[in-house]
């Protein structure tokens, strides 16, 4: 009987993608052990989950497959080059606080950059990270990984429709009549969103997919526009061209709710389907058909992902997508609008919490004196009104900046692994080694921790409370499932301790206290109390009022009232430019980075889940056309070496009918087949998002496969030992 009492069921939100699926854990609390995990009903998932939801909790058991859990604070007492030594929390906090203080005094507040985490820590930790950066360090140099994924969506949407989030909700997708997926493969990035697309198709929706590969989404589409990689702007401009020149626009909507039509037409008039066909490789007929089909419904939805944002013209493509929806009056009603579907579990939330260099929590501009005054009053300090720099510019402000007074000298990285996730890793490693003081706060050893001066161990998802924001603006609770093992603390508590040690006391008893401080400073979130989240399960922002009547907002821009200052949407786009680095004789293939459905982010979590690792493991794959494989004499599974101007990696060859000759694709989660050794660090000038989706590469055959296999195994063992896994421990 006594044993039964300790078994408890705890519902929480999945820690993987932005869909925000609800999972139910059965836990033996006495044994601190997970007995069962399965999906339960939630607003977005309706009781379903993908493989990561079903089997992705296993890293909580620290199986030490890819990397080991961080369990003690560590510092390099004798500076760079000396070993990381385990110390008490007090010593670690003092060490970090003293160094931050020293750097701030010597080089000024803008010599610091904080990277918040869009993963496990949650919204409350995100709020604390930006508050620390702004109130304690005195700078707006705060950013997070949205920069390397959907920053272009935030920038492009805010410039046109005023709000950088999905205008519609995930459940609305299934009632759309036309779904235009561009650079978005829901099947790999959000299987539970893909489920809605499948349902929409069964209900009769027409599905269009613009993608250079035959993705799963392309495969289930009614029309696949297999465009040349990097030609998105030409395609969307030509769709606008057809919509306008064939008079398929919603005149009333455009007249009442938009401006900038003349300037917009001035740019898109050149993009006739015939002209766009020469850039995209599509047929003018398919372009016309797509434009007509899209404009034919008032329930047309555009969904996009990294396939448009991770280009140097990411923001431009987003602006034009928003314009297409405005031209056809596809905003402000259910099942229409724009859907930049967020990749990581809390990347929407980390944007919401103001972990961005230009906005406070709730998208309030740092340059607005009234807003600044409000936060100064609340936090009791003078704040900077200068927008900060983006994290993708760290190399520029470290190794490429000649003047030491303008450099970044301290980098506080929470729950991110730039040495795996950022483009051109050689450059990143050099940068990390040259920053005077690097702090890594994380749950696992990772590649960045190797360059850190202090390593602070945090609790993981499942070991703390809080809330995440799903991709469709839904605040949902996450709950503590297990007692954490080791000398770890929640992220928010670590940051608060550093702040306090620096002379700015930050004390909260729980995450709800942090949340309550935040919502009172952010009108759009004020009504989203913990109590409301408990009652409704999910509260979609804007939610202005704490009263029961305000249940949140299902879709944005109701009746065509946009979130711009004057409520009017702005039609915008730009002329097409080719990608920065194109194929050449030395590197004849285009390389695009894509996603492995069973793995997540930098793979510290899923790489340590037994089932997900057994489904797919190192050194990953490079997808190649059958023609290119024939030319090089490659067979499936063979180990190959992939080169770009910046580096080379080993991976396995996967011949597939799904890619076109001349283009190759690598999933970014692998540590051996780390495609970011190859990618280019050129950035979108507006969003500073890197061009992961296009660079020039070459694949080479390795004659001695037995040697190659041994070499890969050796690299794997080396990586694991660098991540502090001792082989005997694993086998025991």
């Amino acid at each position, binding site marked *: 009987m006594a044993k039964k009492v300790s078994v408890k069921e705890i519902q929480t939100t999945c820690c993987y993608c932005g869909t925000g699926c609800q999972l139910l854990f059965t836990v033996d609390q006495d044994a601190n052990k997970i007995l069962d995990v399965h999906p339960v009903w939630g607003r977005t998932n309706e009781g379903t989950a993908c493989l990561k939801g079903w089997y992705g909790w296993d890293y909580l058991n620290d199986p030490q497959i890819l990397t080991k859990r961080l369990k003690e604070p560590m510092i390099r007492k004798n500076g760079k080059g000396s070993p990381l030594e385990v110390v008490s929390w007090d010593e670690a906090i003092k060490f970090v606080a003293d160094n931050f203080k020293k750097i701030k005094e010597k080089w000024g507040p803008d010599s610091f950059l904080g990277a918040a985490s869009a993963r496990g820590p949650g919204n409350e930790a995100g709020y604390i990270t930006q508050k620390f950066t702004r109130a304690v360090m005195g700078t707006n140099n705060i950013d997070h990984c949205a920069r390397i994924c959907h920053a272009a969506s935030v920038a492009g949407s805010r410039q046109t429709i005023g709000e950088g989030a999905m205008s519609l909700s995930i459940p609305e997708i299934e009632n759309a009549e036309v779904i235009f997926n561009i650079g978005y493969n829901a099947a790999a990035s959000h299987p539970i969103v893909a489920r809605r697309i499948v349902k929409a198709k069964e209900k009769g929706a027409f599905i269009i997919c613009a993608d250079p590969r035959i993705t799963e989404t392309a*495969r289930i589409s009614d029309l696949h526009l297999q465009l040349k990689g990097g030609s998105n702007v030409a395609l969307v401009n030509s769709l606008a061209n057809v919509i306008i020149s064939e008079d398929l626009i919603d005149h009333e909507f455009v007249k009442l709710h938009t401006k900038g039509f003349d300037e917009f037409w001035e740019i898109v008039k050149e993009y006739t389907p015939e002209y766009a066909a020469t850039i995209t490789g599509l047929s003018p007929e398919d372009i016309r058909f797509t434009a007509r089909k899209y404009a034919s419904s008032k329930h047309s939805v555009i969904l996009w992902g990294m396939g448009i944002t991770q280009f140097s013209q990411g923001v431009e493509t987003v602006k034009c997508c928003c314009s297409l929806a405005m031209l056809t009056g596809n905003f402000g009603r259910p099942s229409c609008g724009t859907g930049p579907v967020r990749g990581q579990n809390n990347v929407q939330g980390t944007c919401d919490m103001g972990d961005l260099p230009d906005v406070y929590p709730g998208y309030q501009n740092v340059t607005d004196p009234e807003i600044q005054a409000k936060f100064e009053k609340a936090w009791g300090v003078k704040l900077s009104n200068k927008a900060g720099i983006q994290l993708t510019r760290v190399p520029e402000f470290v190794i490429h900046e000649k003047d030491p007074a303008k450099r970044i000298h301290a980098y506080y990285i929470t729950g991110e692994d730039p040495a795996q996730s950022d483009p051109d890793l050689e450059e990143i490693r050099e940068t990390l080694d040259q920053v005077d003081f690097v702090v890594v706060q994380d749950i696992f050893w990772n590649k960045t921790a190797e360059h850190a001066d202090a390593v602070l161990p945090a609790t993981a998802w499942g070991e703390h409370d809080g809330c995440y924001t799903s991709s469709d603006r839904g605040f949902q609770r996450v709950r503590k499932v297990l007692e954490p093992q080791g000398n770890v603390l929640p992220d928010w508590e670590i940051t608060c301790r550093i702040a306090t040690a620096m002379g700015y006391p930050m004390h909260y008893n729980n995450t709800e206290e942090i949340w309550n401080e935040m919502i009172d400073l952010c009108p759009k979130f004020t009504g989203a109390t913990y109590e409301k989240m408990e009652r409704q399960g999910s509260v979609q922002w804007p939610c202005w009022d704490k009263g029961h009547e305000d249940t949140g907002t299902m879709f944005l821009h109701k009746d065509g009232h946009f979130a711009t200052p004057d409520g009017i949407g702005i039609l915008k786009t730009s002329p097409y430019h080719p990608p920065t680095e194109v194929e050449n004789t030395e590197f004849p293939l285009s390389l695009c980075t894509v996603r492995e459905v069973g793995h997540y982010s930098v793979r510290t979590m899923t790489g340590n889940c037994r089932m997900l690792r057994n489904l797919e493991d190192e050194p990953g794959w490079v997808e190649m056309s059958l023609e290119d494989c024939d030319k090089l004499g490659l067979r499936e599974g063979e180990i190959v070496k992939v080169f770009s101007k910046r580096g080379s990696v080993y991976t396995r060859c996967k011949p597939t009918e799904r890619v076109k000759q001349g283009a190759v694709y690598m999933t970014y989660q692998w540590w051996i087949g780390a495609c970011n050794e190859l990618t280019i660090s050129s950035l979108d000038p507006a969003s500073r998002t890197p061009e992961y989706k296009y660079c020039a590469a070459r694949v080479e055959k390795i004659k001695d496969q037995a040697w190659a296999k041994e070499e890969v195994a050796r690299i794997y063992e080396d990586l694991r030992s660098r991540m502090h896994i001792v082989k005997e421990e694993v086998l025991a």
Partner: protein
Amino acid sequence: MNSFIKANPIRCIGCRTCLISCVVAHEGKRIFEIDPDAYNFNPRLFMVKTARVSAPVHCRHCENPACKASCTSGAIYVRDNVVLVDTKKCIGCKNCVIACPFGAVEIVETAEVQHDGSPRKIANKCDLCAGVADSPSCVKVCPTQALALVTEDDLSESVADKRRSAAVAALV
């Protein structure tokens, strides 16, 4: 009539949640506690991806199974409308692999070690989770409901519906 699992390629998104669920069902929850290399990850269904199709391939549980007819050791048998392999009897002769018209059987290594130190190899195929779960695990976990267990009742109902439609159409 034997039951079988039918995949709907319009719904399948190729995510392979079904493959993992198959291994979890057959190996038991202990695999969340042991070294991931200490057992063999052998799903009993196979994801096939061509340019236009993604779908898992399962055993059809044929009424006159070619695998059973070809089995040299009498390891393949039918019980409660499911075609099963008696793993103890199986000698790994591969006749079933050759005989199966769907490619739904394969020979896999088990964790069992033979006298000479080599791993024992046996035929592996879908058993509709007989004896390991109340219903086929792959059907239960599929996020897009792309898999369905088809029983004799389901089939006769569907046939009756089609006949009804055909008869009504004939009137017009």
